[in-house]
């Protein structure tokens, strides 16, 4: 019995995550479409369920029922397995994420590296899927996608190193605790690192403005071109899971993980009441809108959503109301931690969407130039700047603020220099000299 006991809780958590993730991914898609619609002065999905709330489920059913096509000369086994590799890699990475101080599958000694390493295995899903499709567009899309992933992983990894220097541990829980101890989230201490990670994580998840493999006009849909139905849905699931993963890494590393804003200042304790109030507000909105829905089913669904929000409100409010020292009160850290973690992850993903609907797309060579000629050097300088600041602080006993600010300023100066010199290389147009040679 004793052999099995330590595994029960992690397995339970893992089951919860695996069961909820497809639903979550579906609703992120819905939110994305709603956000897009809002930015583009439209309404977005409105038909299935109130405000389109049942759209993800309808989509999932549609995808499951679709004909499953395997191209004629495809390598069937690899074609079949590639999406699974992507999904598995993305889901494995979730194992080490601390969603609140108590809700974590495993707190590994090498936590952060584990997430990075496992999620980088997702490349195989992309490359093999593109190769097995036996199609021109798929292969090119897959190679591009993989090249992009590998390139930006370099700068993302180096950006993370900057924050790791501050934390002094690889354990995800330890990183959050380090931020809790100083009271400063690492985004304020290592802003350049956060910026690099933000850009690199967008590129790593293949999202606009770096969405070469999917939307680039000449590659149709990249590695997913030949996929349809359920397998295509798996790729999509992997993509959105990866978004959650990178957002969670950023949250853990830079945004203070499960910590409430100003967690160490008693003055701001009223922020504890924000989560239940927020949920109550959503519930109120649902109840207000419910009678206005056209169909009885939609009315009922709206009320159900409202009741769910009430339940969440109760869950969030009870630990606050319970007398100190009771079991309920001590569960506050866990419940509220999970709320704040998910809240920050959602905010990070919102930034992704915001950027996607604002910017045009990079060209592939511009993307590579940005990655290798700007982000990678900048992230190396960032690591050195952080190292310098920390060395001054820890070895020479400088006060923390000037030492770290010196490092940041040096990094920013290097970034400005890179930008200034990069302008010159901006248009090494293949055009001018070669055009004449073609004509000649």
């Amino acid at each position, binding site marked *: 019995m004793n052999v099995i006991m330590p595994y029960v809780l992690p397995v339970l958590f893992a089951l919860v995550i695996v069961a909820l993730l497809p639903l979550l991914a579906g609703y992120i898609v819905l939110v994305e479409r709603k956000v897009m619609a809002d930015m583009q002065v439209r309404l977005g999905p409105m038909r299935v369920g109130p405000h389109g709330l049942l759209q993800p489920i309808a989509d999932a059913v549609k995808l499951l029922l679709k004909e499953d096509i395997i191209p004629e000369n495809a390598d069937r086994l690899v074609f079949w397995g590639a999406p699974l590799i992507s999904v598995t890699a993305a889901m494995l990475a979730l194992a080490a994420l601390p969603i609140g101080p108590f809700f974590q599958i495993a707190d*590994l*000694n*090498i936590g952060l*590296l584990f997430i990075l390493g496992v999620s*980088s295995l997702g490349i195989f899903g992309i490359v093999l899927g593109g*190769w097995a499709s036996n199609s021109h567009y798929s292969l090119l899309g897959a190679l591009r996608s993989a090249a992009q992933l590998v390139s930006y992983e370099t700068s993302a990894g180096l950006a993370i190193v900057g924050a790791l220097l501050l934390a002094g541990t*690889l354990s995800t829980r330890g990183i959050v605790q380090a931020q809790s101890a100083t009271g400063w989230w690492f985004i304020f201490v290592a802003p350049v690192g956060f910026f690099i990670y933000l850009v690199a994580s967008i590129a790593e998840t293949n999202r606009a403005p770096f969405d070469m493999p999917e939307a680039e006009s000449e590659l149709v849909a990249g590695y997913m071109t030949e996929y349809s139905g359920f397998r295509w849905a798996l790729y999509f699931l992997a993509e959105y899971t990866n978004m959650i993963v990178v957002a969670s890494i950023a949250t853990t590393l830079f945004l203070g993980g499960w910590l409430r804003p100003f967690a160490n200042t008693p003055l701001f304790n009223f922020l504890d009441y924000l989560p239940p109030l927020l949920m109550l507000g959503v519930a109120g909105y649902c109840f207000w809108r419910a009678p206005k829905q056209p169909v009885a089913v939609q009315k009922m669904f709206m009320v159900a959503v409202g009741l769910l929000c009430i339940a969440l409100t109760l869950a969030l409010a009870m630990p606050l109301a319970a007398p100190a020292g009771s079991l309920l009160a001590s569960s506050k850290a866990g419940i509220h931690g999970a709320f704040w973690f998910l809240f920050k992850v959602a905010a990070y993903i919102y930034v992704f969407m915001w950027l996607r609907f604002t910017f045009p797309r990079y060209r592939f060579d511009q993307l590579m130039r940005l990655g290798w000629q700007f982000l990678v050097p900048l992230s190396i300088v960032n690591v050195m700047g952080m190292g310098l600041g920390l060395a001054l602080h820890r070895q020479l006993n400088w006060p923390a603020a000037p030492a770290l600010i010196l490092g940041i300023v040096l990094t920013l100066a290097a970034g400005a220099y890179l930008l200034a010199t990069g302008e010159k290389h901006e248009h090494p147009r293949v055009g001018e000299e070669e055009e004449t040679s073609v004509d000649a």
Partner: protein
Amino acid sequence: MLDQGVFYFFAALAILSAILVVTRRNAVQSAIFLVTALLATAGIFLNLNAEFLFIVQVILYAGGIMVLFVFVIMLVNLDVALHQVQFNRQWFVALIVSAVLAAQVAAAIAVSRRTLYTVPAAPAESLEPNTERVAFYLFHNYMLPFEIASILLLVAMVGAVVMAKKRV
């Protein structure tokens, strides 16, 4: 008990995948099975309390080197290659080499049978905390080899770029 089960599972997986690596006709499939073999090895590392090495194996070997392999296979992938003879006629050489190797191992095991199976392992705590210990040795006792390795990597990088560059 669980530890041993994990080891035998991964060992079997590694050997099976390794056999498939050298016997598959299609290079891409070979690469896939090599990845499996490498991941199985990583699992064995984890079982041996070498967490840092486990992740190095996953990131560098499976995630880095093998992606490079898959890339190159796809770049040079020829449909013709599938119809060519994939094995040369040196199987008897391989047989002899394997046989000699097997004989040597058998001899070695026969000689040191007693110690091989009875040596007690050091306590697992002697390797904890793994990452910190590895870092300490790497940047303390093995500083010079570390630097040499980085120069080796630099040279290899330059060499690879120069060789793979298109001839102008």
